[in-house]
């Protein structure tokens, strides 16, 4: 009897620990396990890395792929899994170390947080369409419950809005999965991909549109993202950081994974998605200019960056895709850092509104300094990591000779500079006279410090990781290899 280290642990471990949660309450292990689980998963990801780099890791569940469910850990999904574990680790460490509000530290929050991680991991890893729907609902339901966790009117409103819009998205996605099964008789993504070309063209369009509506709502793309700022503002900032940092990233990855896998020629779909991404980016950045609440401003800024990532991934060239994946990682770190500073400021000064934070930089110098660092990284100033990834994306577009996205990205960076400097100016307002209302644990700065350190490290030395992202982009774009890995060389 052996216990092999396989990808299924990324789902099974959080599931097992969440189910057994009454036990941890009894033995007072809740907080150590909450932080320990993502840490263990991160460790597991690094243990599996050498194997993943030699070839995709396929794990069969009960029956071999075309018939059954399988999990697939390849260079692209490895990046997402490691990112999800890292973001989960930082956020849960902040909850533990900052002595956060009691409702974030009880058994129910433990269950929701672990299952959010399990759901995101499952979505990224699974190779089966219906299984994807199930994990989408696991991640979704945990997110609805998390955003309503505080149980006051604004949190309940955020939870309700999220639940309604999320269920609608799930219905549309399920509809498209059902149509795919009725047309092809397959649910395995690779097997569907091999037969997708045989579906009549109008039906393909219908399936694609239904899937775009479903995943577009979840991934917060332009016409479907009106609900996002409300949810981010109503939830605790740490949770908003998690939604922006790992949930949306997982959905974006799933969307592009499906586009690149199902469509033999993703050019047209990619162009559509680039258009959506560009619109998302510009509209969100412009609206962010006049936000008066820090959480809302960060929500719009997050939408802008998601638009940028969509733009880069939709182009479908190796350089921009690698840049897009790198920017995903950077944006997760940066937004997590910014939302954690927002949590510290909100806790210290009770309000997160612009008018109430004048001069907060002197009462909380470390938090304000980290906010400035994060803001500079979002804008993409050297030597921070945002610069490196934006440079990859811009270089990719320039090499391909397509210049309109370059102009749009630079314009968006200018707008970003505008509103972030507005906030920085207020934080260091010399006339402001603020006294902190509540103390903040010194240890709370540890996870924020780690995030800041990684941002600087990735910015100074992007060559440490560029192999990983280029391999990831190759795997994501190489449809033929993905099909033959699952279905055998013959197909």
């Amino acid at each position, binding site marked *: 009897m052996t216990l092999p280290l396989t990808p299924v642990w990324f789902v099974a471990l959080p599931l097992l620990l969440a189910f057994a949660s009454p036990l941890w309450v009894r033995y007072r292990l809740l907080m150590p396990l909450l932080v320990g689980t993502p840490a263990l998963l991160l460790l597991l990801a690094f243990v599996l890395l050498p194997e993943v780099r030699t070839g995709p890791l396929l794990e069969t569940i009960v029956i071999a792929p075309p018939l059954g469910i399988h999990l697939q850990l390849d260079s692209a999904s490895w990046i997402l899994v490691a990112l999800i574990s890292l973001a989960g680790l930082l956020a849960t460490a902040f909850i533990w170390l900052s002595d956060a509000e009691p409702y974030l530290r009880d058994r129910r929050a433990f269950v929701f947080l672990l299952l959010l991680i399990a759901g995101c991991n499952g979505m990224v890893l699974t190779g089966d369409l219906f299984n994807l729907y199930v994990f989408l609902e696991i991640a979704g339901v945990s997110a*609805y419950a998390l955003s309503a966790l505080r149980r006051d009117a*604004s949190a309940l409103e955020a939870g*309700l809005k999220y639940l309604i819009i999320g269920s*609608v998205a799930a219905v549309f996605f399920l509809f498209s999965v059902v149509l795919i*099964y*009725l047309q092809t008789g397959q649910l395995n993504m690779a097997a569907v991909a091999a037969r997708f070309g045989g579906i009549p063209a109008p039906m393909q369009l219908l399936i694609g549109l239904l899937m775009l509506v479903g995943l577009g709502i979840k991934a917060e793309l332009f016409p479907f993202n009106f609900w996002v700022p409300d949810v981010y503002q109503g939830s605790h900032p740490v949770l908003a950081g998690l939604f922006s940092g790992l949930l949306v990233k997982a959905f974006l990855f799933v969307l592009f994974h499906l586009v690149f896998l199902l469509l033999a020629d993703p050019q047209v779909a990619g162009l559509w998605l680039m258009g959506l991404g560009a619109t998302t980016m510009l509209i969100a950045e412009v609206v962010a200019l006049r*936000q008066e609440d820090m959480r809302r401003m960060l929500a719009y800024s997050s939408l802008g960056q998601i638009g940028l990532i969509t733009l880069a991934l939709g182009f479908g060239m190796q350089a921009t895709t690698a840049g897009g994946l790198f920017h995903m990682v950077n944006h997760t770190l940066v937004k997590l850092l910014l939302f954690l500073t927002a949590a510290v400021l909100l806790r210290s000064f009770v309000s997160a509104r612009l008018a109430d934070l004048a001069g907060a930089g002197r009462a909380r110098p470390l938090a304000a300094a980290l906010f400035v660092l994060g803001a500079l990284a979002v804008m993409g100033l050297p030597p921070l990591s945002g610069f490196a990834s934006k440079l990859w994306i811009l270089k990719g577009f320039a090499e391909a000779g397509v210049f309109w996205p370059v102009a749009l990205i630079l314009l968006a960076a200018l707008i970003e500079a505008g509103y972030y400097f507005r906030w920085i100016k207020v934080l260091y307002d010399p006339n402001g006279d603020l006294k902190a209302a509540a103390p903040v644990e010194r240890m709370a700065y540890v996870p924020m410090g780690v995030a800041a350190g990684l941002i600087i490290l990735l910015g100074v030395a992007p060559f440490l990781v560029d192999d990983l992202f280029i391999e990831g982009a190759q795997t994501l774009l190489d449809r033929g290899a993905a099909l033959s890995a699952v279905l055998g060389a013959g197909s």
Partner: protein
Amino acid sequence: MLAFLDDPKILHGIYVLGTLTLFFIGLYGLLAKRHLLKVLISIAVMELSVYLLFVGLATSPGETAPILSDGLTEFAGMADPVPQALTLTAIVIGLAVLALGVSLAVQYHRLTGKADIARMTELKEL
């Protein structure tokens, strides 16, 4: 008298008609109604119509339930078991989400006295 239903095309056509009618009744309710519970019910109707489509179109007339009983000895001439299993899964998921939604809506109504989706304005800027 109902022999024409044995033609799979006709039977499936009826399923498609019914399913889509239900789906768009649900979509209309989702867009037009403003009471929280009505919105949740509309979503449930949309979900149910998708299940109906799945089970209805995956089974052809003349196929038996995929269970060995009543003298059947081999798995042949039976309905496709996968859509049935998946629909079971999807129904339970739909029920769970609906129950969570209703409990959120009830709690929200208790706290604020509001049940109108257009008046949910705690979270507006300024």
